[in-house]
């Protein structure tokens, strides 16, 4: 939607299409208010950075639309004053909790493990960044696009280093990926300009594209569980197969009364959907009228042996899928080895194919 509005704003003067902008803006504001506000600031920044954009391309209509955009945002915020108060509170709580979580997660980072093959899935972004960086030096690219590219490249760098320092902030998700999407506008242009630099340029462009294809194919982004591919950190790994789907539905029928569950985040969210009518909360964990589900792997919640034992002692029920155990940043590496002994000391409620439900830990 953001790309569409940007396109509508930057296109040539076309009366038929300019009428679409208010509709698209309304959809953006009602769709995601926070994104709408950030988008507004981004466009404002572009306007300040490049006066040509304001004067030549968009003239008065743009200013009117921009004012209209902010009036709508303000109206929505006034209509939902409680929401405004809540959102400020949430923002503050979110920032503070993110930093606390990030510190906690950095401390427990050694327990989680990301194989080197996960780098494969980021190589396309490396290509996007490298090509966009090169496009900064091509004089035929308009200055406003170069400014946008420079700002976005800085955002990608910031996201990368913030993620390295405090992984819990998930800066790559919130800053890095949106920035990479914007960079994908300059990527084709960069490739095109490179391919015009004689035979060497053409070879370079071709090799880059082949590298991207190879990285995509062998990262296993759409081929989960393939032994020949790398293991992506999230993506499609640890999916619920058909037989597990049937088992989870059956287990869901057995869950009666107030129950606390710990499981991998895929199973947890699917259970939440199965109990959609009674849902109270669904984000970090899932809460329904009767169920409280702690999702391993959700927002840095990594389940270690000690944590699992504590939870089982508190009366949590463990729903364990074999594939869920392999999900990166869900369970610690050592847990898989110690799990047999751990389960031995509990009451096994259900023992299906590649799936176990257990509770009541008893010290041996």
């Amino acid at each position, binding site marked *: 939607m953001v790309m569409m509005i940007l396109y509508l704003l930057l*296109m*040539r003067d076309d009366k038929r299409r300019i009428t679409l902008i208010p509709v698209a803006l309304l959809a953006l504001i009602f769709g995601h208010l926070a994104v709408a506000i950030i988008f507004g600031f981004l466009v404002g920044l572009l306007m300040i950075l490049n006066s040509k954009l304001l004067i030549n391309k968009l003239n008065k209509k743009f200013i009117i639309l921009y004012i209209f955009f902010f009036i709508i945002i303000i109206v929505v915020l006034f209509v939902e004053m409680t929401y405004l108060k809540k959102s400020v509170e*949430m923002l503050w709580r979110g920032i503070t909790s993110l930093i606390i979580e990030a510190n906690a997660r950095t401390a427990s980072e050694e327990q989680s493990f990301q194989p080197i093959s996960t780098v494969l899935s980021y190589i*396309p972004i490396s290509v996007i960044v490298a090509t966009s960086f090169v496009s900064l030096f091509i004089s035929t690219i308009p200055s406003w696009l170069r400014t946008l590219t420079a700002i976005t490249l800085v955002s990608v760098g910031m996201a990368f280093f913030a993620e390295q320092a405090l992984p819990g902030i998930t800066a790559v998700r919130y800053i890095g*990926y949106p920035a990479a999407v914007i960079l994908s506008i300059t990527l084709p242009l960069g490739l095109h300009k490179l391919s015009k630099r004689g035979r060497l340029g053409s070879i370079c462009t071709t090799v880059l594209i082949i590298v991207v294809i190879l990285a995509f194919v062998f990262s296993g982004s*759409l081929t989960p569980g393939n032994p020949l591919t790398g293991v992506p950190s999230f993506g*499609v790994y640890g999916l619920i197969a058909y037989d597990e789907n049937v088992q989870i539905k059956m287990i869901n029928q057995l869950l009666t009364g107030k129950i606390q569950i710990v499981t991998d985040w895929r199973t947890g969210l699917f259970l939440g*959907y199965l109990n959609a009518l009674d849902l109270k909360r669904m984000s970090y964990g899932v809460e329904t009228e009767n169920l409280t589900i702690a999702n391993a792997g959700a927002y840095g919640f990594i389940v270690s042996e000690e944590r699992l034992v504590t939870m089982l002692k508190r009366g949590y029920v463990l729903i364990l899928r074999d594939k869920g155990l392999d999900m990166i940043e869900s369970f610690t590496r050592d847990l898989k080895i110690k799990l047999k002994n751990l389960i031995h000391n509990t009451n096994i409620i259900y023992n299906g194919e590649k799936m176990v439900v257990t509770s009541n830990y008893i010290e041996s």
Partner: protein
Amino acid sequence: MKKLLIINFLIIIVGILILPIVYLKNIFTLSFNGLVLIEITLLILTPLLIVTFRDEKEITTFFLNFSITKIVIILFGIIIFIIAYTEMIILGYTYFLTLSFLFVALFIALFGRGKHVAKIALAIAIVGGLISALYGFYVPTFGADTWRDVSISKQIIITGSFESVSIRHPAYPIPLVPLLYTVMSLSLGFSPVWSNSISGFAYLVLLPLFIYYQRGWLAVTRSHTILVCWRWLRPSYLYGQYGSYRRRTRC
């Protein structure tokens, strides 16, 4: 500009050499994977900067002697679906055949002869066929937000009332996305999960078309159309279309 380019080139060379020392001496918090990624980026950047030094010449393009026709598009989509699904049924996961075919098909989509729109259609058919096979075997891969959206949609369908929705997220004043799934589910007779999946396919088809049919300045991006689709926390597929830039006369 050339001076700036030379300075950047030197900085990058120094960066390639210094970063491993930064990692080994633990001067800055840098994981091994992070170091590998940044080194790869800098290594990609080095030849690109050398190429940028050269003057502009006539565009040199490379194409395979394989034309992308309607039959090829349909066949490739069906073949990848059959291969992936058969491997998943027999082995429980996709294996060598799927990978090989995926590589060959993407290679043809990028370097085969044909109209831009045919190349886009082939890429959509390949990715669409693969996703169809995955969704046929696994529960669709959603993140927390998407499961919440489909759950809200399920609530609206069962209770028949928008007011009865029990979970609201403050970021979305009006849950438009669940409403969209609800409308789709009611009109098509699918569950919200499948309405979501169909929306994903529609997005897959519409986004490249949107890029392809751009007019005005942004139309230059059509020279090599790149599509990045986003899944849970990471990009899932990246597709580039390699060809010469032609301005469309009409849309």
